[in-house]
């Protein structure tokens, strides 16, 4: 309540005033003050929080704090002053109540005591009533009654006395009540008075404090203003000084710059003149150039125009061609599409064809199998036939030989009359076709190599003896070279040997090692037979020498192998040439690989051909047969009669033939005459028939007439 009134009464001009101006002013002031107060509170509290730490409290804030404290104190004091009345009243009331309680207590005691005494007295009286009844003497009774009345009176008196006392007390209480009422109203008045006083005091103090706060704020503001002004002036002074300095330096700089500018200007004018002259000449030159350029430009322009025209034309043409091309493209697209269709068709077609072909192939394969079977069958048959024929022929020949021998014997014995010796003819004892050698006449490449490696002079001879006759010269020729070659090969072509093998070989001796290595290498190179080895060595030797010796090499290649029949014939010549190719100097190891490559390339073909022939061999049992021996065999048979005998025979035959001829001529002539005689007889018969036949009469012109005509 106090606070509320404070706010109301802060302002100087009263709100309740009769003057409206004053009221407005009062309201304004009130609003302003409220705002200020709010601000002050906010700021002041802020400041309290802040400046307690910084210890530099603004004067206004300080004043606010002080005022607040003072007002707080004032308020609490006022509150206390006002409430003091109530407290005092309370205390008094309490005392009063305590007294009341006490007095009540005493009163009750008194009442109790009185009631007791009175009841005692009453009992006494009532007791005496019974005694009174006993009394028969009226006087006594009267006395008694008097006494009784006396006693009653005393009791009543006492009661009345008490009642009076109580009534007195009541009156006293009433008085007290009145007093209390008065006191209370006094208290209330006092309280109101104090309140009003407080309100007044507080408003006054609030106003004072407000004024003080304002003053302090103004003072603070003034101080702050002064401080700021001082600062401002100081900084302004500094600024002025600095500006002066700056101006001075500026003037100085300006002077310097002017001087520099002058010098620069003079220099520049000179330079300018120079440059001007130069530039003028330049301009002239450039003008000339410009003229030239213009001319060329014009020329170029014309040219370009012409070009432009041409290009335009071309462009037109291009557009035309483009359109054409486009059309073409479309056309081609169409064709492409059609072709695609065709292609698809074709593909389909070819697929079908392929399928057909596959079918056919299968059929053919089947046929081939069939054929193969047939062939085997036939070959067996052939073999049998061959044997039969052979036997037959042999028998025939043998019979012929026998005949011949017999003829010879007869000739010798009968015609010539010479003794006849039976010639030695072992072949006649044999029967059937010549036995084919079952063991391969050619040793394997490895064994050959082994031999070579192991060979010395003696071994060489031995081996050559073992070998067949035809091989002898060949092996003799190249043995040394071959050995060297193999050694080199062993070293150089080590890559062909498997690594595992190398490891395994290490504990072995060098000879064995090289041998096994060679074995592996030969396997890798597809060299199987001794012939291959020799071929290889020959190949190397060829390359080792020069290409000029091509004849030799070609001969070298050919051995007594069954593969090439032609080579066989030439082999005889090769003996001579190959002897000359024995020189020890061998090809360089580095070249070996190239040579080896070539060899392998060439060697591959025969290797490929081989299986075919082998197949054929297996097919025919005659694979290993040696027809050459057959020829010799047959020749031997044919030559049972030697040339001298033949000559003799020829001469004899000649003579005999001549004799024979004569005889035959005679015989022929006899025969001729016989036949002619017969002919004549026949012809005569025929003629006679024709003439005699009836047909001649039916014909207009019968042949007989013609005959007659002719005869005529």
């Amino acid at each position: 309540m106090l606070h509320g009134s404070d706010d109301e009464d802060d302002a100087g001009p009263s709100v309740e005033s009769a003057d409206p101006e004053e009221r407005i002013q009062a309201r304004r002031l009130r609003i302003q003050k409220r705002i200020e107060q709010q601000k002050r509170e906010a700021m002041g509290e802020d400041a309290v929080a802040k400046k307690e730490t910084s210890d530099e409290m603004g004067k206004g804030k300080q004043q606010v704090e002080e005022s607040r404290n003072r007002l707080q104190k004032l308020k609490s004091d006022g509150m206390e002053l006002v409430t003091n009345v109530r407290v005092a009243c309370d205390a008094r009331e309490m005392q009063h109540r305590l007294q009341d309680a006490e007095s009540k207590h005493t009163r009750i005691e008194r009442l109790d005591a009185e009631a007791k005494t009175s009841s005692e007295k009453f009992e006494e009286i009532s007791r005496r009533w019974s005694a009174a009844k006993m009394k028969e003497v009226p006087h006594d009774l009267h006395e008694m009654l008097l006494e009784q009345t006396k006693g009653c009176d005393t009791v009543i008196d006492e009661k009345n006395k008490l009642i009076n006392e109580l009534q007195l007390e009541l009156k006293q209480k009433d008085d007290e009540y009145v007093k209390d009422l008065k006191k209370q109203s006094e208290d209330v008045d006092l309280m109101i008075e104090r309140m009003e006083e407080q309100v007044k005091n507080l408003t006054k103090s609030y106003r004072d404090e407000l004024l003080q706060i304002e003053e302090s704020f103004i003072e603070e503001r003034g101080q702050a203003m002064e401080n700021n002004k001082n600062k401002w002036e100081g900084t302004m002074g500094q600024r002025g000084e600095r500006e002066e300095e700056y101006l001075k330096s500026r003037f100085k700089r300006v002077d310097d710059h002017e001087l520099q500018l002058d010098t620069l200007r003079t220099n520049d004018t000179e330079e300018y003149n120079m440059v001007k002259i130069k530039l003028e000449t330049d301009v002239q030159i450039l003008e000339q150039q410009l003229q030239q350029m213009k001319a060329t430009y014009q020329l170029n322009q014309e040219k370009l125009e012409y070009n432009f025209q041409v290009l335009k034309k071309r462009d037109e043409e291009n557009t035309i061609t483009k359109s054409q091309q486009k059309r073409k493209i479309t056309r081609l697209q169409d064709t492409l599409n059609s072709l695609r269709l065709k292609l698809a068709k074709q593909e389909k077609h070819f697929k079908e064809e392929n399928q057909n072909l596959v079918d056919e192939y299968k059929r053919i394969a089947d046929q081939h199998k069939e054929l193969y079977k047939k062939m085997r069958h036939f070959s067996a048959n052939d073999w049998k036939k061959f044997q039969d024929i052979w036997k037959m022929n042999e028998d025939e020949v043998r019979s012929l030989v026998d005949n011949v021998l017999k003829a010879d014997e007869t000739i010798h014995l009968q015609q010539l009359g010479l003794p006849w010796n039976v010639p030695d003819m072992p072949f006649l004892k044999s029967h059937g076709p010549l036995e084919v050698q079952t063991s391969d006449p050619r040793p394997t490449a490895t064994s050959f190599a082994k031999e070579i490696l192991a060979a010395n002079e003696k071994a060489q001879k031995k081996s050559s003896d073992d070998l067949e006759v035809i091989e002898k010269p060949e092996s003799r020729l190249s043995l040394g070279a071959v050995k060297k070659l193999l050694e080199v090969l062993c070293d150089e072509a080590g890559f062909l040997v498997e690594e595992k093998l190398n490891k395994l070989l290490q504990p072995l001796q060098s000879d064995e090692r090289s041998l096994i290595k060679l074995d592996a290498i030969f396997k890798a190179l597809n060299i199987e037979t001794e012939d291959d080895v020799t071929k290889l060595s020959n190949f190397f030797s060829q390359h080792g020498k020069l290409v000029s010796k091509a004849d030799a090499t070609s001969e070298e290649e050919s051995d007594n192998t069954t593969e090439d029949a032609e080579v066989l014939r030439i082999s005889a010549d090769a003996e001579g040439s190959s002897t000359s190719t024995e020189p020890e100097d061998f090809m360089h190891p580095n070249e070996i690989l190239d040579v080896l490559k070539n060899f392998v390339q060439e060697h591959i073909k025969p290797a490929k051909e081989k299986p075919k022939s082998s197949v054929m061999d297996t097919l025919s049992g005659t694979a290993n047969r040696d027809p050459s021996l057959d020829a010799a065999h047959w020749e031997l048979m044919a030559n049972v009669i030697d040339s001298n005998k033949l000559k003799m025979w020829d001469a004899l035959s000649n003579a005999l033939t001549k004799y024979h001829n004569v005889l035959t001529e005679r015989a022929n002539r006899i025969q001729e005459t016989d036949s002619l005689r017969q002919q004549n007889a026949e012809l005569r018969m025929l003629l006679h028939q024709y003439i005699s036949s009836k047909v001649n009469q039916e014909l207009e012109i019968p042949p007989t007439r013609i005959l007659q005509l002719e005869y005529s």
Partner: protein
Amino acid sequence: MVVTDLRSNILKASQVPQPTSTDPKAMRRIIAEDPDWSLATVPLLKDLSTNHIVQNFENNPILKGLPPKDKLNVLEKIDTQIPLCVTSHLVDDESYWKRCCKSKWQICDVSTYGGSWKRMFFERHLETLLENFIPEQTNEATIEEAIPLCARYVKRLNIKQLLPPVKDAAKEDTISDLGSDAGSEAPSMDHFEFGTVMEKLPHLEEFRITYGVRDCGMNFEWSLFQFTQRDCLLLAKSIKSCKQLKCICIHKSKVDDSKVRVLVSHFLDHPSLTEVDFSHNCIGDRGARAMAKLINNKCPNLRKVNLCDNVIRGEGAKAIAFALTKNTKLQELNLRLNRMGDEGGQAICKVLLKNNTLKSINLASNDMTEPTAAVLSQVLQTNTGLTSVNLSGNRIGIDGGKQLQEGIESNKTVVELDLRLTEAGQESEYCINQVLRDNQEHAREIQESHTK
């Protein structure tokens, strides 16, 4: 317009010069000193119509359809004496109700009515009706008529007196000083029944009542201050049915133990009751026990209990103290001017060692002495919830003051400790005041930091 008016004026002046000469004002064409003087004498139709509305407002209240400016105009002009049945629900404008209040009462503090003049008007209107109601004499219809008009705006009823029924008006009016016996003999002294009224007030939150006559002065008579059993029962029932009531105050009504018990039994488990005030009655220990039951968490929202100026002794204080051990809601307890003595004071203070929710306690004028102060000093050392303690009027003596001084030195929360008329010794009082001032500063700072 102006020209014609001028002319008419001139004409008038010229036509009747003689009569006007008596009034010098009428002779002048321009009256400079009169600010209201205007030549535009023909009023606007709008003004005319508004005036008409104002004049006939009582019979034909037209307000809703008017534009706001005219509405204000009308409201400014209509009479405050227009019957409430016309205006109560129609007019919401505060200025009109302000005028009504001002015309009816001299002192008007609108701040106590939540700033609403209308509320103030209706509350006070209803209060005066109820205060002047004499049972069996006044027509009940007057109140029944008034209630539907007021019901919407009444939040508080502060009934300062209730008149008892009277057999003869003359006796009532001129009560003699000696006729003290007459009142007590009256067969029925029941007062106005609140049941019907309370039911019809949907917004009632605060209810203050005194069963007694105001300003009787020297016309005092016991019969004027009688709170009968029936009154008590009816009031309790009506309060129980009024669920939105927050504050109930029955003071100066001679409420004794049995009545308190009736009232409390009806208050139990009241959902919104926050404040109970039974000050200036004659509640004894039994009544205090009933109150203790109410405090003991039986009333979910109870915050404030006022039992000042009763006759509670040690036993009742013990009961209340026991209730406080269980309670965690109560914030204010006023036991001023009872007779608890040291027994009750110690009991209450010991409870405060455990209870931390109570903020304010008033033990003034309770016939307490030093032992209570000793316990309180312990309380001051440990309790952190207590902010205000009133011990005035208790004779705690110098030793007690010293103990309190010791106790408060380690306390940071207590802001008020009233030690007037306690004979506590100036020195300790001064020291305590120092501590209190520090605590006040501290509390203020905390509050400031909260507001920030």
